[in-house]
């Protein structure tokens, strides 16, 4: 008997490329999940990795930066928050 692959239905799972169990520094939710305002993880609620090395939900960090008190600083290390361009 010889067998040959005809069709392959692969299953994969994705997670953000951040250390496991890491949580968003702003909303304290795991990156696998969404920010408090979103329903679906993934493209709908992406991550943003700062140049300082801290990652946040895009929506969370956006809200943060827009507050007066943030002065454009990373909420974790108080350095100027800049993100890695895609």
């Amino acid at each position, binding site marked *: *008997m*010889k*067998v*040959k*692959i*005809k*069709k*392959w*239905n*692969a*299953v*994969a*799972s*994705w*997670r*953000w*490329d*951040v250390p496991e169990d890491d949580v968003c520094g702003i909303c304290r939710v*795991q990156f*696998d*999940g969404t920010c408090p305002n979103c*329903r*679906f*993880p*993934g*493209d709908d609620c*992406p*991550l943003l*990795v700062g140049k300082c090395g801290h990652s946040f939900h895009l929506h969370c960090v956006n809200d943060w930066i827009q507050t007066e008190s943030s002065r454009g600083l990373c909420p974790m290390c108080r350095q100027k928050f800049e993100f890695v361009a*895609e």
Partner: protein
Amino acid sequence: MPEKVSEQETQSLGKKRKQQTLQSSQSSQGLSQRSITDFLENSSQDSNLPSPQPGSPKRSRKNSEQPETSKNMSTQQHWRHINESDIIDLTSSPPDIRASPIPNVSVTATKYPRPAPFQPHAGAPRKLHIKNLRKPSKVDPDVYFNQTWNSLEAALTAIFESSKISTSLEELYRGTENICRADRAGELYNKLKACCDAYISDRLKHSIMTSGSWKDDVVKCVVSAWEKWNDQLGMIRSIFLYLDRSYLLTNAGPKLQPIEPTGLDIFRRHIVLAKEIETKFMNGIMTLFERDRQQLPINSSLLSSAIRMVDSLDLYTSNFEPRFLLMSREYYDRLGVLEATSNSLAEYLDECSQQLYKESLRCERYHLDPLTKRSIRLILEETLLINQLPILTDQRSIEELFQKQDHKSLTILYGLLDRIGEPSSHLRSPWEKYILEVGRSIIEDEGRENEMVQRLLELKDSLDTFVRVPFKGDDTLAYSLRESFGTFLNSRTKERSEMLNSKPAEMIAKYVDMLLKGGARGASTGTPGDEDTRLAHSLEQVLDLFRFIQGKDVFEAFYKRDLARRLLMDRSASRDAERNMLTKLKNECGSGFTQNLESMFKDIEISRDAISHFKNTRNYTENARDIDLNVLVLSQSAWPTYEEVPVIIPVKMAQYLESYKNVYCEKHSGRKLMWRHALSHCILRARFAQGVNRELVLSVLQAVVLLLFNDVGAGAYLSYRQIKEGTGLDDKQLIRTLQSLACAKYRVLQKKTKGKDILPTDNFRVNQNFSDPKFRIKINQIQLKETKEEKEETFERVAMDRQYETQAAITRIMKARKKLRHNDLIQMTIDQTKSRGTLDVPEIKKQIERLIDKDYMERLSGPEVWYQYLS
């Protein structure tokens, strides 16, 4: 004028009947009676008396009552005739005999009887003009009276003897008239009355009591005599009509009654109320009723006549009814006791409903008074229902009716109980007991676990039918149904006392899974419509069960697992049905639950887009295009957690997957992609000996094992160890996989040594003789049924979630209240977590302890236990 006046007498129901009797008897009497009526009618053209008043159904109404108007009218008319000219109308009232003593036709007629009988229908009122014929011959009034009375008495005797009347009726009528005009009506009346009195009290009574059937049929004797007397009375009245109209009706009082009531009164006194007759007669009627009730043959027209007679004689309310009701009560008392104790409930119910129905018909048939009918109904209800209530509402017997699905008896039972009170007060308890018993027997039947939902659906349907049909939609019983259904579905089991019995929730989730996988065909056959409609209907039914479930969390956990499996294996029968179900669950459980499920659907859609994107890249065209690749990328957090299974994928396939991964990660930066080979499946094309080609649908784990055999010669063996090295599978996975290939239904591989178990010392080779008529063979081992471990794991997660949710609830409550008494906190926690699946009190206490340990709250010392929230 005359006929109309007599109509005014008809004031009561009883009287109406009486007139019918009289009229019917006229026909039997024949020509002479009719002729007089016709003769009189011809003279009544000028009458315009008021129309009769509507009869009242009251039986006690007195015969002699006369409206005031009729009296005035007759007097008026009387005088109008007297003032007429010299034209003498024979058929109408002549002038006063003393004022103008004309030799009257009737007077001469007594002397010279006419040879020919009176001709009926002689046309218009004949008017005889008598001119110059007045020979005033003085007749002594006493002599005239006696002569006339003699003729009348002779006629009465003839009537009593049923022989021919020798004098013409016209003459007799005129004679009466003349006597009345001579102001001797009272005298005439007394003579007539005495004559009838004598006849009835002596001859008629005697003939009744000496007739042949007196001994065994008193009713018949009396009724026959009555009918005969009625006929005779009709005749008498015709003859004495003038007396009746001009004197008796106008002067009626307690001592003076018109002829008809006088006649009835005489009959009543001397016959029916005679002490030798009354009891026997009434008992005779009672016997007839009793025989009729016993379904023995009776002369029902005789009974009808007897009732009519009693009614006409105004004896219905006084003599008949009380006896009838008493006798009926005794009869049905006996019957109730006898039937209730000697029959099953179903038989007794049938008997009761029959008796009630028949008795009502009987009352109609014999024209009993509506009030009697009502009393009889009350008697039956009291004797058959109220007095037998313990038997009628015996809990065991009613439960038996439920068990036998005896809708007929239950319909009767409900109807009967409805007559005497609130049926639900008697039915509720056995109804609830039945529901709980049957329900529990279904959910505790471990042997038929797989049929549980189907059986619950059938039970629900049958219970709904009980409420709808026999119980006529009774609100209380419908409410009981829902209560009891919820109670047994959410009862606690012995083994898992810390949790609600989660079996129903689990099985309902499984059932939904079966439906959504396309198993609807078996589920609701007989439902009309296409497959989609049937599926929607079945889902709606099972959702009805789901609504009763308190521990929705168990359902949710299993539903999520099953949905994941359907999506991964592409086993959904209908995308619409899945969406539809999702919407329904959202309505039932809120969006918190469906969020993850929607996420799963979304993943499927995104993956579809991603694969078509991949197939447009160079990475795809560079790879083996003869392998049809599909990739499903899951967002980990939305899906159930699956075990990681390391496995070695053939190099070529691994490269293919790697190129997909590159394209994916390029598009989605910041993401890591991990293969879930244990969830993947594939189709292999296999060529067996003698050129047999088959397609095998396999899990990827099965496929990697089979692919190893491509590299060995035909019929050569691979050892367990070699396969393990080649696939990189651990023992647990490998044993399962080899079992599915060599020991299950389709044996693509052959084990060297026989036996069901896979041992590390086993050797395997391809089964050269494998054959199957089907081209595509599904050997897929990714179980459609979950394993025991998976199930345990699901339960454990549900239990953990519950603990977590309980803690969250306690914290929420404490945060809001700051300080709470122990019992209040427990109760509020139960209330808040009920819909998700309630924990036992000990379990809630345990969670309180944990929160105290974690310093979320503290216990305050004192005689009563209080808690204080710590922020």
